[in-house]
């Protein structure tokens, strides 16, 4: 008998717990020539907003030690073109599709969620609450428990789909934020989004990103992601999806052992597009070798007493 990799993230059933992270896998089609995307546990789309967004001027990316900075600026086709142009392909894959949404006002979040609710074949909505709130001096929605609550509650009201709140690590107290999004009706929490970072070209004495600062991702941030995932898992409220710096099966195992129900691969796709599929295969081998029948036996198996 083969091992069971399936998990349930609230109402979302996944054949395996390895998803690809928002913004790193486009709309699924971009990698379709390169790997068998049908084998993924799920696809989280690039953040979608109400209207199309061109994104930031280049340069948009810079490499840093064991990581990268990006300031894409949430470039996306907007929810209407997404549904017309991108969703049919995604739906054809028979893989759970989670649409990530990112907006600049609360009502836009609700509107996009409502529009998506009309579509067939979506597994859930992931709310990127790390975006700047234009109504509050550009402060990220996710950096304050009450604005985070407002956004999640508005989306929750607008849709019957499972709602995942994606948290930003750039906060003093992630526990309060997590509690407030759960209170607002989030079915699951994913974390972490990128850390704020910066890099300077010493020859031109200019920032390496046109946007000056950007989001740090990749293996460099994995310890930060793991610490926050573990903190939220311990609340024992909703399932947690771990994201941040996962490029190998060992990395993925750290998150499962810490208690993540599923994981997302972001920058790891750029490093090697085979990363998620390789992790899926190697997870099976690991479980077999450990004599475990299902991934759920591994999830949360961290021993912390000496």
């Amino acid at each position, binding site marked *: 008998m083969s091992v069971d990799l399936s998990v349930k993230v609230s109402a979302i059933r996944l054949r395996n717990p390895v998803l690809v992270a928002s913004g790193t896998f486009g709309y699924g089609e971009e*990698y379709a020539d*390169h790997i068998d995307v049908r084998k993924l546990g799920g696809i989280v789309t690039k953040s979608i907003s109400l209207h199309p967004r*061109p994104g930031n001027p*280049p340069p948009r990316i810079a490499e840093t030690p064991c990581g990268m900075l990006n300031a*894409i600026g949430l470039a996306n086709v907007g929810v209407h073109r997404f549904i017309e142009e991108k969703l049919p392909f995604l739906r054809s894959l028979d893989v759970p599709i989670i649409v990530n949404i990112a907006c600049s006002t609360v009502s836009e979040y609700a509107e996009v969620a409502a529009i998506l609710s009309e579509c067939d074949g979506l597994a859930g909505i992931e709310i990127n609450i790390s975006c700047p709130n234009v109504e509050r001096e550009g402060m990220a929605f996710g950096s304050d428990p009450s604005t985070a609550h407002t956004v999640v509650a508005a989306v929750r009201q607008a849709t019957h789909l499972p709602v995942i709140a994606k948290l930003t690590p750039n906060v003093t107290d992630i526990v309060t934020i997590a509690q407030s999004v759960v209170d607002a009706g989030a079915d699951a929490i994913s974390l972490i989004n990128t850390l704020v970072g910066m890099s300077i070209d010493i020859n031109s004495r200019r920032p390496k990103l046109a946007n000056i600062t950007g989001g740090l991702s990749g293996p460099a941030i994995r310890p930060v992601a793991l610490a926050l995932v573990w903190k939220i898992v311990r609340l024992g409220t909703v399932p947690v999806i771990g994201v941040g710096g996962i490029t190998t099966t060992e990395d993925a195992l750290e998150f499962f052992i810490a208690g993540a129900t599923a994981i997302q691969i972001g920058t790891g796709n750029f*490093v090697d*597009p085979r990363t998620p599929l390789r992790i899926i295969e190697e997870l099976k081998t690991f479980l077999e070798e450990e004599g475990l029948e299902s991934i759920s036996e591994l999830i949360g198996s961290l021993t912390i007493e000496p």
Partner: protein
Amino acid sequence: MPIHTCHILSHERLSGDVYRLKFVSEPICRGAQPGQFVHIRADVQSDPLLPRPFSIHDIDREVMGVEILFQVVGSGTRILSSKRKGESIEVLGPLGRGFGVDHERRISVLVAGGIGLAPFPFLIKRLRESGHSVFVLAGWKTVEEIVGLERIESSGASVDVATEDGRRGSCGTVTKLLNTRLRAGDFGSESEIGLYACGPGAMLATVAHMARQYNVPCQVSLEERMACGVGACYGCAVLAADRENACPEYKLVCKDGPVFDMNEVCLK
């Protein structure tokens, strides 16, 4: 094409910091178009983390070999330069949109600035197969930097060199040389000419400017920092043409390019 592990057939240092590396890849050999690129990780190390993009320099069907010509500029290229024959590298590709062969214009003029020469041997092969006459104008700052020219010279293209130190070929930039040649009508009738350019951004902008002046079409190969290489991350954006004052619109170098018609993008 999935990313695959490729065996290194040969690796030589051509000059101070320029190397030519040949690896085996049947799928790339069969599927590649001139102007496309490959995304290479020298190793499975995690620093540097991301693959590095290189134009396909040439292909050798007999041994299913793919060549790149590259210059060491930072840690990724330094590590790549240390790889030896017999070792392997991780390669994703062929990627992007290559040069289109303009069958209406059978006089092809290729303009290269420095390491911008990299994609031309493969392109020349294809152009010659299509019966084009090919002129290559290649420029370098100093004579010491000149590299990779034999391959071009033996390809049946006629070659003209410009150096800014004036110690070989014409003195000055390659764009100055291009201007002289176009003005003199050295290549033939303007209505027959198609321009193909690869090199630094400023050079490409100047070449495009001349192309407009002489009313010849021009394809340019651009570079931008890349992460995914496949159009998934939106990292490698360049401003689309005529968008500077409107709401900006971007093209992706890895997917919409790296080769663009000069009128598609904003060059500067």
